[in-house]
C-alpha cells in the first residue's frame, strides 16, 4: 500500500514498525539507541532510568552524612568507597538515559524543580552509625533484588549499566550487614543502636518495592516491554524472605508483631503496610524531603561558577585537546 511521506511516520508505517518492534522484544533482541521505538516506550524508559539515576545521587546524602564520623579508618574507607560508587552509578544511569535523547542537565533540572521523583527511602534520616549499616543491609539489599532482573531488560544501555551496577552493589550490601553484625554483637549500647536502626528502616525498606500489584496499573505495559520483569509484590516477597532470615541470624527483632512463617506457602507473611505513610513521603512530607532536595539545589547553584569556569577555559584553549595527553 502506498503511503505518503510527510516529515515523519504515517499511521500505516507506524503500526508496521510497532509490530516489528514488539516481535523483536518477544525474541529478546535488545533495543539500542537510535533504533525506532514507540514514543510511550521511550518516555517510560526515560522516566524509569532517570528516576533510578536521581535515586543514586540523592542516596549519597544519607550515608554521606556519616563519612566524617565513621568510627574507624577502615569503616571510613569502605563508606567513602560505597558513596563514591553511588555517584558512579548515578552517572552510568544518566549516561544510559541520555541515549534516549534528553540532556543530563534537563533531567537534573526536573529533579531540582520536583518534576521528577527519586526513591522515597532516601527521605528518611540517618540518625546513628547503625543507620549506615541498616541502609547497606536493607536498602541495598532491596535494590539488588530489583536490579538483577533489570540486567535482562530490553533496552541495551540500561541493561549494560545494570550489569556494571550489580557487580559493584554486592559489596554494598555485605558491608552493611557487616556493620550490623559488629554492632549486634558489640556492647549493649551498640546492640540497642542496631535494633533501633532496624526498627526505623524496616517498613520504609519494605515500601521501596512500590505499591501493591493491585494498585499498580502501569506494571502490565512495562512488563510487556520487558522494562519490568517481576511485579512489585513478587520482589517484595523475595526481599522479606531473605531479610527476615538475616535478621534472625543477627539476633535482631523485626518490628512486626504479625510476622510469621507460613509453612504451606514457604514464605514469611507480614503485617499491614502503612501505605498512607508511603504516599505522604512521596508527596513531600517525609522527614527529610526538603533537606535532601535543598542539598542538591545548593550543590548545583553553588557549583555554577565552577562549571562556567571550566567551559570558559575549554573555549579559550580549544586547540589544547588536539595534542594528545
Amino acid at each position, binding site marked *: 500500500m502506498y503511503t505518503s511521506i510527510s516529515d515523519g511516520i504515517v499511521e500505516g508505517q507506524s503500526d508496521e514498525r510497532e509490530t516489528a518492534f514488539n516481535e523483536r522484544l518477544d525474541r529478546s533482541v535488545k533495543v539500542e539507541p537510535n533504533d525506532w521505538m514507540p514514543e510511550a516506550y521511550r518516555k517510560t524508559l526515560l522516566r524509569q532510568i532517570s528516576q533510578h539515576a536521581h535515586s543514586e545521587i540523592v542516596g549519597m546524602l544519607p550515608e554521606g552524612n556519616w563519612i566524617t564520623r565513621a568510627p574507624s579508618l577502615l569503616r571510613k574507607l569502605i563508606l567513602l568507597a560505597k558513596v563514591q560508587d553511588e555517584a558512579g552509578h548515578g552517572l552510568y544511569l544518566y549516561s544510559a538515559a541520555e541515549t534516549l535523547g534528553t540532556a*543530563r542537565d*534537563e533531567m537534573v533540572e526536573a529533579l531540582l524543580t520536583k518534576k521528577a521523583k527519586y526513591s522515597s527511602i532516601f527521605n528518611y534520616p540517618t540518625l546513628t552509625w547503625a543507620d549506615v549499616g541498616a541502609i547497606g543491609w536493607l536498602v541495598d539489599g532491596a535494590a539488588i533484588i530489583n536490579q538483577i532482573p533489570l540486567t535482562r531488560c530490553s533496552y541495551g544501555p540500561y541493561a549494560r549499566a545494570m550489569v*556494571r551496577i550489580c557487580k559493584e552493589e554486592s559489596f554494598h550490601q555485605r558491608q552493611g550487614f557487616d556493620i550490623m553484625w559488629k554492632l549486634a554483637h558489640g556492647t549493649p549500647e551498640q546492640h540497642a543502636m542496631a535494633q533501633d536502626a532496624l526498627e526505623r528502616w524496616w517498613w520504609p525498606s519494605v515500601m521501596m518495592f512500590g505499591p501493591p500489584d493491585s494498585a499498580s496499573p502501569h506494571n502490565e505495559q512495562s512488563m510487556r516491554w520487558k522494562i519490568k520483569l517481576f511485579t512489585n509484590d513478587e520482589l517484595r516477597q523475595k526481599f522479606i524472605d531473605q531479610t527476615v532470615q538475616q535478621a534472625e541470624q543477627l539476633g535482631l527483632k523485626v518490628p512486626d508483631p504479625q510476622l510469621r512463617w507460613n509453612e504451606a506457602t514457604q514464605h514469611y507473611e507480614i503485617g499491614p503496610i502503612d501505605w498512607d505513610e508511603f504516599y505522604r513521603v512521596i508527596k513531600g512530607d517525609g522527614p527529610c524531603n526538603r533537606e535532601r532536595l535543598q542539598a542538591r539545589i545548593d550543590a548545583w547553584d553553588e557549583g555554577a561558577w565552577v*562549571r562556567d569556569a571550566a*567551559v570558559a577555559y575549554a573555549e579559550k584553549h580549544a586547540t589544547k585537546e588536539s595534542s594528545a595527553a
Partner: protein
Amino acid sequence: MKNEWPLWEIFVRSENGLAHKHVGSLHAADAEMAVQNARDLYTRRNEGVSIWVVRSSDIVATDPSQREALFEPSEDKAYRHATFYQVPDGVKHL
C-alpha cells in the same frame, strides 16, 4: 542548556591483547578532564590499561533504518565462511 559540559563516549582496554570496549559516557569540559573522569569512573576496580575518550558529537554511526541495506546482504554470502567448504577426508591443515 547553558554551559552544559559536553558529552564524551568512553572506551577502555582492560588488558593488553584486548580491544577497547565502549563502557558508557560522561560529561567533561575538556579532553584532559574527560580522561581523568573516565579513569575515576570506569577503572576504579583495576579495569583498564588504556582509555580513549571521544566527543559524542564526533561519533558517526550507521543509521538503524538503513540496517537492512547495510547488513543483510552479508547474510547470504556463505562462501565467506570456512564452514561452507567441504574438506576431503584425510586432508590436514585446512
